[in-house]
């Protein structure tokens, strides 16, 4: 047995092990709140309504109309390029926001990060 093993054996012998239940689980179960269910439909409705409102408010803008028309006809014009760049920018921003949110949720165990030891 190495010296490290001997120290570990001493530490393990000192550890009392798992604590017996003694009514702990019942007390916790008694305090559990009901779980709120998450519905997906508000998000979907919000996306559709948002896109529709956006389209309605932008279709009266000449640059957008010209850009959309040129894009549909396959013409690479300044308005079409502007529209493309704006759409690409918004997509990139959304992608960055989604990645940041996903990263936050993955690194969170449910509480703020431990900071001291």
């Amino acid at each position, binding site marked *: 047995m190495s*010296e*490290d093993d*001997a*120290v*570990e054996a*001493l*530490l*393990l*012998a*000192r*550890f*009392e*092990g*798992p*604590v*017996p*239940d003694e009514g*702990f*689980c019942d*007390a*916790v*179960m008694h*305090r*559990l*709140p009901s*779980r709120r*269910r*998450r519905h997906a439909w508000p998000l979907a409705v919000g996306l559709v309504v948002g896109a529709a409102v956006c389209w309605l408010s932008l279709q009266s803008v000449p640059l957008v109309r010209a850009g959309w028309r040129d894009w549909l006809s396959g013409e690479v014009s300044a308005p079409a390029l502007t529209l493309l760049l704006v759409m690409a920018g918004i997509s990139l921003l959304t992608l960055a926001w989604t990645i940041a949110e996903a990263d936050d*949720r*993955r690194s*969170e*165990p*449910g*509480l*703020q*990060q*431990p*900071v*001291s*030891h």
Partner: protein
Amino acid sequence: MTDSADQARVDQALVARVLLADDRRAFEQLLRRYQGLVRAQLRRLLNGDHASADDLAQETFLLAWRKLHQFRGDARFSTWLHRIAYTCFLQARRKPSLPSDRHDDEAAQQTAPSHAMDLHLDIESAMQRLSAAEQTVLLHCVQLGMSHSETSYVLAMPLGTVKTHAAQGKAKLRALLADWHDTDRKEQTS
């Protein structure tokens, strides 16, 4: 398939049942599987204060219930729980009602134990001479049986720091115990 892999699969299935079917019994099974070790962890961190440890353990499981959708399965479920418990401990320690910084300074100034003490008391006293970080790392790495990377996840401490604290803690324990036993032996022979 190893035992731990089987256990992880069972945990995942129980978590899925809670999330998809709002199955409280599945959560109760998770609770019964891990309450013992989480409470043992908190009792050690709180220096044997059973009442405060059990309060924090309740808080830990209630938080786990509320945040269960955030469990991704990257770590073992037990490791995730231990991390929540440790974070609850740190938050509670910042409040004035809990005794803070159990060891460190005053423990370091304690006198060496009587040579007549048995080995159990020796290791107890030796542990109190380690820094708080070394004690915490040894608790998780050795007594709770976690790997270095799991300990790093629970304590949110860099892996290298965990390894350093573990090695230093063990080295200090070896030295302290060896010193006391050498002195003890010399006294017995003289």
